[in-house]
């Protein structure tokens, strides 16, 4: 099996890594810096890379470690955390806007696992490897997040379901 080179990994994954980091940090500059740092690390450790088809898990493990480092630094330098959150293209749909708010209210460990599934598209096994937890923990956390989001967004989801019904049966 030939190994992917850094530029190929970048082409394939930088967008989804950026979106994951943007949702976790809610700051464009931080997300961009961390995304760039991910690929710097990739170049540095390419010789030890033997992911064998698990390149996404490998990349997101790097991204998560960098995110944890960033969090630790932010705690030490709290003035950085006071920067106003930014969104390059804020969601315009009502459900999307409410979803953003609800995601922010979730515990970080739950949000992280959920976003690794829904944004990054990782399997439970890959998420368990990235977050160093069991597959059962991943399964229950993802379900807990979905249940919480359903509870918080019940009116919006109800409206969205009705719109869907009207589209099917006008």
């Amino acid at each position, binding site marked *: 099996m030939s190994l992917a080179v850094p530029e190929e990994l970048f082409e394939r994954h930088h967008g989804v890594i950026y979106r994951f980091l943007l949702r976790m940090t809610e700051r464009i500059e931080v997300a961009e810096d961390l995304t*760039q740092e991910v690929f710097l690390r990739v170049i540095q450790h390419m010789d030890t890379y033997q992911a064998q088809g698990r390149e996404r898990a490998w990349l997101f493990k790097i991204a998560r470690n960098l995110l944890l480092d960033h969090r630790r630094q932010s705690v030490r330098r709290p003035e950085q955390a006071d920067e106003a959150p930014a969104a390059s293209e804020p969601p315009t*749909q009502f459900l999307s806007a409410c979803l953003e708010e609800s995601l922010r209210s979730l515990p970080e460990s739950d949000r992280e696992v959920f976003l690794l599934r829904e944004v990054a598209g990782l399997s*439970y096994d890959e998420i368990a490897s990235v977050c160093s937890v069991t597959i059962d923990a991943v399964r229950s956390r993802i379900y807990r997040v979905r249940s919480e989001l359903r509870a918080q967004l019940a009116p919006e989801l109800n409206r969205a379901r009705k719109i869907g019904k009207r589209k099917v049966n006008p």
Partner: protein
Amino acid sequence: MTYDRQSTFEPISAFIDGESVDPHDLAKVLSVPGAREALVDFILLREELKKDDRMPNPDFYEGIRKVIPASLPGRLWSRTIRIPLVAAALLVALVTGLVGGLTLFRRPAEDVPPPYTERVMTFEPGVDWHTSDEENGQ
């Protein structure tokens, strides 16, 4: 299996993620009131998140070019194309060599015309050579 509020629809959640679920558990869960709505809601949440197509600003790409110069599209394209081209060239060279070799060295003998006469050499007995009897007589 009991269906408390915490874990009622967990098999549905795992099922839509492509994870393995017990079909009997899934069948039971799908018969619970509200299961259909839960399934649709999970998908609606997913679809909302899929709409997010935000990408880094153009400045980011300027910066990353310094880090990964090869990430320039042209370079990536050329690398992608270069390998198949080299492989194709090697294959053509191999086939040409094989066919050429067979043509040169395995041509049947009857197909090869005899060489034309360019010079005729004649030898006269007694002039160009002598028998041993003549030699003994002399």
